[in-house]
């Protein structure tokens, strides 16, 4: 494998990795606060893709308006899912919340299937993301540059919110010890809603960029990315935002490089995440950036 080939694969790997990372942050934050695997999180990617698609194709909105709308509506949906499905059973055993989450995920997928139909729709690619920049032997798709820049900006914003603002501090405190934080007069539900909104908005942004890269919108498109993003979150250390982003990068790079090094293994690409998860659970269950959370 020569130098420029490796660099080329690095570009591809980072692009996919950014998308996994954006999705993983939402999983990680919700799990950190509620100890709940939000199975519906991957489907938010699908919802935002559809909203973006309809905004552009049916309502002829300009790109930025349509994308902003998709992100805002998906964030709202995230809050609604929490209020409607998870809040009423916050006190009951964890397994009940998991089952509800599966139900919500299936509901989103099948409502999309019934109302919109199962035929994949091709996502229109805006002009400014097509083309590629060629540096030496390496061609960097413009889309990859966009994905990378947008991810870095969103990640920085998200980190700033969680580290510096009052609600971010409340969120981190909540993930440590819910009861004490409530005694301190923090409105728990407001913080949880904010967590869902933030995570969903990141998933929505990821979803739109996902569709530009793989332009086929269909009801079940969020399942596999969702599954992998959760693995990325575990890989980085669940509950840690920078860890989730890093886990996403590692997963993206691993998938791309394994296929690049051993092309005959390309059929096993979707299994890489799973084996990484097993390895990490066996060797370092708290993940790369994770700290031991109190049970």
């Amino acid at each position, binding site marked *: 494998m020569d130098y420029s080939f490796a660099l080329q694969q690095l570009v591809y790997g980072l692009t996919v990795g950014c998308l996994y990372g954006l999705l993983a942050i939402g999983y990680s934050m919700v799990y950190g606060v509620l*100890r709940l*695997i939000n199975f519906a999180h991957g489907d938010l990617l699908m919802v935002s893709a559809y909203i973006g698609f309809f905004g552009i194709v049916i309502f002829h909105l300009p790109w930025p308006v349509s994308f902003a709308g998709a992100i805002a509506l998906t964030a709202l949906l995230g809050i609604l899912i929490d209020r409607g*499905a998870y809040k*009423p*059973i916050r006190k*009951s*055993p*964890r*397994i*009940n919340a*998991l*089952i*509800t989450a*599966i*139900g*919500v995920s*299936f*509901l989103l997928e*099948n*409502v999309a*299937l*019934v109302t919109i139909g*199962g035929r994949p729709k091709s996502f229109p690619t805006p002009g400014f993301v097509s083309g590629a920049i060629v540096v030496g032997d390496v061609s960097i798709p413009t889309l990859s540059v966009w994905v990378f820049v947008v991810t870095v900006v969103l990640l920085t914003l998200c980190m700033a919110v969680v580290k510096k603002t009052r609600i971010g501090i409340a969120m981190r405190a909540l993930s440590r010890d819910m009861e004490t934080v409530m005694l301190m007069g923090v409105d728990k539900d407001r913080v949880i809603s904010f967590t869902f909104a933030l995570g969903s908005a990141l998933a929505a942004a990821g979803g739109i960029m996902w569709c530009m890269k793989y332009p086929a919108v269909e009801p079940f498109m969020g399942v*596999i990315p969702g*599954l992998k993003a*959760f*693995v990325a979150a*575990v890989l980085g250390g669940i509950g840690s935002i920078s860890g989730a982003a890093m886990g996403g990068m590692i997963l993206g790079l691993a998938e791309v490089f394994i296929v690049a090094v051993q092309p005959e293994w390309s*059929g*096993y690409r*979707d*299994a890489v*995440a*799973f084996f990484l*998860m*097993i390895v990490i*659970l*066996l060797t370092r*269950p708290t993940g790369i950036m994770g700290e031991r959370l109190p*049970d």
Partner: protein
Amino acid sequence: MAVSRDRLLTVFSLFILFSFLAYADSNFSHYTLRILQNIAIFITLAVSYNLINGIAGQFSLGPNAFLAVGAYASAIFTLSPEEKLRSFIIEPMLWPLSVISVPFAASLLIAGIVTALVAILMAMPVFRVRGDYLAIVSLGFGEVFQVLANNSMSITNGSLGLKGLQPYTNLWWSWGICVFTVFCTLRLVNSSYGRAMKAVREDETAAEAMGINAFRIKTLAFAFSAFFQGVAGGLLAHLITTISPSLFTFMFTFNLLIIIVIGGLGSTTGSIIAAVLITWGGEALRFFEEPANLFGFQYEGIPGMRMVLFSVILILVMLFARSGIMGRSEFSWEGALGWIKNKLSVMKV
């Protein structure tokens, strides 16, 4: 005295069940018989799925993967060498497998054992940490199984699947296995292992403090449930006679989840009742998805409508009727007889 009476009643009701099946076998239509066999297989699956999710309290999403493993394991062992030679056209089958052919019963046993081994391999990393990860690992395994089956041409014949299985599964096999599974599960649940599982479900730390090895108990429950799911997979394979990697979708797991939730998480009786209701009801609800003429209106039929309905039911049951049909209680002859006596005395007055 009460024990022997209960045993007598159980044997008697089993006798009625099997007489009914004997009657059905010769009188009912092919379609009805098929539904009856589906019901038996779904009871087997639901009862064993309920063991890990309801009784041991560990959230697994693996049944579709275990069904697939079991189906493939038993199919590979019952196919005749000639049939294998005919099916494996792209790559010949791996040597020892290509010549082995065993009776159906032995293949079911192999299917169960192989599936249980897979479950143990999965449980080892997962149960070392929080049980939550089991959901993702078992869900992921369903996807990975498809990847593996599609790519290991010399064992599974890839995406071509396995064809020409003998239709060994009949009413007797499916219901026999079903009754056997229920019997074994009830024995396990009422043993000290079963009580340990419930203790782990309620409070893992407290259970460990009482000297229960939670890791071992969880792994045991998982392997036990996987064994019967594997056997059910073998039954299913020889009922539909053609299997391919894409057949065993997450839909199976979702249906089972609805069954055990509606029946009441943790109740074997509930799982049985709900399995009958949902399997039969799922057939009955097909009209939703088929074009029909309702009171003069042309109804187009919407594919996927049943799944929307099922997911709404699942969420609603979880939110408002968490205990399902049976809660955590079980059927007992004591309770049933008491209930009948009560009704009779009311009628006399």
